[in-house]
């Protein structure tokens, strides 16, 4: 880890090569993170760019306590959230009662690729997407999400439930066939 420390220190003193090394190390994974929070890959690219600028500006303050990846990841999530706050303050939320009762199995989820899953997540209404990501993948609880996004705990909960509903419906719509095929082959 000494070398990572060195890269961090060099980044802090503005060395170009160290910055590039850091970028090469973490960009793919962080692009994956940004893709989940964005509506499309253009927005994800923008967030990745803004996030890394923040990383390089603030890396001097990184205390070597937690993992660097966790730290960078938090910056990416924060940049994504910030953008969301600016853009979607009054974003209308669809009535999702029509989606209720949609079920999807693990088998379908297992069969579709991460890329396909991300495409479905990107289709979610922005706030659902944020709550879903924060809860399911970042592992925040509803209390934390409500503070992070300035919404009530109840809203967070219902947004998560609705995000799940929509996801299930879309996955079933798009990839339901897989389940059938699987069943047939299994049978």
């Amino acid at each position, binding site marked *: *880890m000494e*070398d*990572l420390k*060195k*890269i961090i220190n*060099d980044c802090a*003193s*503005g*060395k*170009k*090569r*160290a*910055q*590039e*090394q850091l*970028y090469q*190390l973490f*960009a*793919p*994974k962080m*692009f*994956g993170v940004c*893709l*989940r929070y964005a509506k499309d890959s253009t927005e994800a*690219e923008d967030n*990745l*760019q803004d996030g*890394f*600028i923040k990383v*390089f500006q603030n890396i001097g303050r990184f205390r070597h306590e937690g*993992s660097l*990846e*966790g730290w960078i990841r938090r910056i990416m999530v924060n940049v994504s959230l910030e953008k969301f706050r600016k853009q979607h303050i009054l974003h209308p939320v669809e009535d999702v009662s029509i989606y209720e009762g949609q*079920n*999807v*199995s*693990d088998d379908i*989820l*297992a069969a579709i690729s*991460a*890329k396909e*899953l*991300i495409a479905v997540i990107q289709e979610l209404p922005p706030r659902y997407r944020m709550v879903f990501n924060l809860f*399911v*993948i970042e*592992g925040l*609880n*509803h209390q934390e999400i409500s503070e992070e996004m300035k919404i009530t705990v109840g809203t967070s*909960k219902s947004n*998560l*439930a609705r995000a*799940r509903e929509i996801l*299930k419906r879309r996955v079933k719509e798009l990839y339901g066939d897989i389940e059938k095929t699987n069943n047939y082959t299994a049978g």
Partner: protein
Amino acid sequence: MSKKLNIDDSIREKLDGFSAAPPSHVWDNIQSQLDGQRKKRRMAYIGWISAAAVVVLAFIAGWYFSGKSIVEEPVMVQQQTTPESNQEPAVSKPDKGIEIEVDQLAGAQELNSTETTTNNTIVEDKLLAEVELATEQNKSESDALVASRSDENYSLLERIEAIFTTKQSDVSLAEKSNETQVEENFAADEMLIAANLQSLNEQNQQEHGWIIGAQISPGYSSHSASHDDTYERNMTYNSDNGGSNVGGGISVQYKTSKRLRVESGIYYAKDGQKADNSFNLFSSRNDNDMLYAPAPGGSYDGTELGFSNVVQTGSSGGGIAMNSTAGVIEMESAPRGTNISANLENTNNVSAQRLYSDGEFSQVFEFVEVPLYLRYSVLDKKVGVELLGGINAGFVIGNNAYLDNNSGVQNIGSTADISTLNFSGTLGVGVNYALGKHFSFALEPRLNYYLNSINSNPDVNYRPYRIGVYTGVYYEF
């Protein structure tokens, strides 16, 4: 555990480690944005450099406009060659000693570096092994998960229903149990990163750091001087000869960036002038004086070294005062081996007298200088080139006048009105040669020029300067 977890789990499993190569234009954008910020910082450096340039210009201007200028230079340079030949053997000896020592150190360092590389490969192997182990562990864990899942003998429908009806409070509980697994993944990732970095391991030069150095400087010192008319009338000999001497000191540098360094330290330096064989000048200096001056005696016939100047007795506490180039020299009594003649023919001017001696008169000032220099590295390779410039606070610690005649070298007194604190400017070029990772050998011709007259007497403007070749070693931490 509730079945609801499974969908969140499987989504997380799928997405947590997901990575995708971002398009290359993202990095290009980041770089250009960072470059923009760098430029701003560079502007700040330009501010510093221009400040240094102003100091340098002031320094050159001071020299140029200080009355006595370039015309005298050839004389000084000629003088330099003779006395320096005496100095050289004394200087070259310690130099050799230093070189040998440094060579040995450089050798030791090479040995060390080979050792560390073997260590590195060992560490690498170890890390790789560890990473492999970690991934194996993960694999077995996920295998176990799959196994437990297949054990579940719910029908598909039941399972789906169960997944979506469980309360969310259960989920957060389960979240915690999952956290440990996620952390393990991070640890494995970090080890992978470490292994990657190990292979990327390249030596970067440190941008910040301290450098200490020790130098000795064989040099030549002289001065530029001008005097008030009345003062000059009572001074038959205005010396413009310099002297060779040895100075030196230690320095501390702090790297503020890759190319820029700030230096301070403490140096010892000597400045002064000699007045050897002044008879030729005496006879042509002032025709009025010649009328009343006695003809030089046999021993002062101008073929041997000799000295003569106007003095005033009884003026400063019963002593003898003599106007010299650098100021009024106060003597308590007539030095041994000197004669004082009075101009008794002229009753109006009875106190104006003349001091004669064979031998050589010299006036020496010793300084302790505390510099503040800015160094800019023009070339930063095995052989490096640096420019340096800045100012010194010069404290006068020695102020003596000597007469070297048949009676030996006598300290005849000191110069009055010399300021203790003076300021000088320094310009230099340094050539250094790296002797291993930490040591370097440097040769730095420097010109040091006093910005103010070191004599506070308004009739005297005396500004010493010194050209020295600072030779020494630097150690970089």
